[in-house]
């Protein structure tokens, strides 16, 4: 290679490095701009048992509230219980949203677990099992990273913790925190925590999080106890704009919860 060839190559390399620096710094700037999201968490009660496993009533309800991202629990994938349908993809197709299903257990010839639906595409997806005693149902957290139109990424997770004791669900919450709280990326977790606000799982285990919801009960359909939650992180960089428990839907034994939230 001649001297001028080497010089050209050097210039190209310099340009490439400059472009990389520009891209990274642009992403960094985008990440720091404030943004708002409408989020929902909804336990669909044994994959739509109360709607004869039809997704339509769920789609109709979700459409009314226009959430950007939804955490769902108790979904079947191709089980004999729900007539062999893929509940998550069917619901997503009704809404036009991007779906992801996370298996927690194999069940009745198919799978059972969690889902996230999003208006915006996923960059990362991973289902992480949570520590579960051998005589209890395996639990998990479905973690996604969503790319927003503003150029920012947000980590969004759905979970469903054990219902039998606060001690067990507290261990699960700790493991979930280890998966989710690893950097400063705006992070949201929604789900059926099966524990009340005063119990250790919430009061201590979720201390590092901003709670987007209040203490109003969320279960059953005419609610008497608070067990569904929406949390955000970093605590000091997020706030609740509005929050609502949607009661008496007639399609689940849980009330969907919906919040508009802001990240700084």
């Amino acid at each position, binding site marked *: 290679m001649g001297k001028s060839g080497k010089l050209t190559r050097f210039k190209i390399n310099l340009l490439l490095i400059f472009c990389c620096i520009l891209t990274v710094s642009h992403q960094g700037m985008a990440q720091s701009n404030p943004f708002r999201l409408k989020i929902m968490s909804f336990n669909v009660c044994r994959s739509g048992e109360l709607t004869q496993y039809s997704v339509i009533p769920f789609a109709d309800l979700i459409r009314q509230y226009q959430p950007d991202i939804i955490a769902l629990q108790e979904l079947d994938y191709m089980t004999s219980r729900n007539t062999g349908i893929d509940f998550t*993809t069917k619901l997503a197709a009704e809404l036009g*949203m991007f779906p992801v299903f996370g298996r927690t257990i194999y069940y009745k010839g198919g799978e059972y677990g969690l889902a996230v639906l999003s208006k915006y595409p996923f960059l990362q997806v991973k289902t992480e099992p949570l520590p579960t005693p051998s005589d209890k149902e395996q639990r998990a957290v479905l973690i996604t990273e969503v790319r927003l139109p503003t150029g920012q990424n947000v980590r969004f997770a759905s979970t469903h913790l054990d219902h039998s004791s606060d001690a067990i669900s507290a261990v699960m919450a700790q493991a979930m925190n280890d998966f989710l709280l690893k950097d400063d990326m705006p992070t949201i977790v929604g789900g059926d925590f099966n524990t009340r606000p005063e119990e250790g799982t919430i009061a201590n285990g979720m201390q590092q999080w901003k709670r987007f919801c209040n203490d109003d009960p969320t279960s059953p359909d005419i609610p008497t106890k608070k067990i569904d939650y929406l949390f955000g992180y970093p605590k000091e960089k997020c706030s609740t704009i509005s929050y609502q428990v949607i009661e008496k839907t007639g399609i689940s034994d849980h009330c969907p919860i919906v919040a508009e939230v802001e990240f700084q």
Partner: protein
Amino acid sequence: MMVKMKKINILLLLLIGFWSFISCGKEEDSLPEPDTGTNNSISIQAYSRFNNEKLFKANDYAAVISQIRSKQNSVVLLHRVDATISSTEIKNPMVTIAEETVKIPVFAWTRYAGAQIEGSGILVGQTITEMKSIPTSDGCCYVSVPLTVTGGTSMNFSSITFENETQLATGNAAIKANLDDKTVLIGFAAKSLQNKLKTEFSGKTYRFETMESSGGNTTQFLFLLTNPKWKLDEYKETAVGTDGISCIDLKIEKL
């Protein structure tokens, strides 16, 4: 009496045999057999216009749905199956097609362009536990999904699209950092980049195959990139519908 009984028994056996034969035939007609495959052979279908235009110009996906349903496949790649988002509705053809063909959809995002969410769809016949997408430069993203396919073979199905030369350096670096024994990468690239990619992935470390559409007005080609533990057995192009969509059907094998 005994002879009569014997004859009746034989007649009954023949009837049962004939009935079983007829009913088996009906089952085979109604559904394609699952892609159980032999010798670690895997079938992948890639749908594209080969010109980096979005796959669907209208909201008619029937021809693609019918083609997916009629063929055995482990993975279906829908190149540029963009979603459209507005304040009143979202159109997401990938999810509609997945629902109609009973597949799990995975979206490989490329970029936002106004109301369009550009990217490709990966449809698989199983739930996934993981997916990662690495934006490497503006409009270029490397995506990878671990799958278990025919005969329990592990495969990291991956994809990337190169539109121009400026995307090559960081895109190729992402490919090289992630390519292993399990990787099967189906990519699309501008025809002008073909020689550069061939040079980049030459040698004994890689197996690099290119395929072009025989249709007119195409500006892109498809490439298959693996390590030498995989090989391309055959591929065939089919025109899908009458609107310029092509399907390349690849049979690849884990050696």
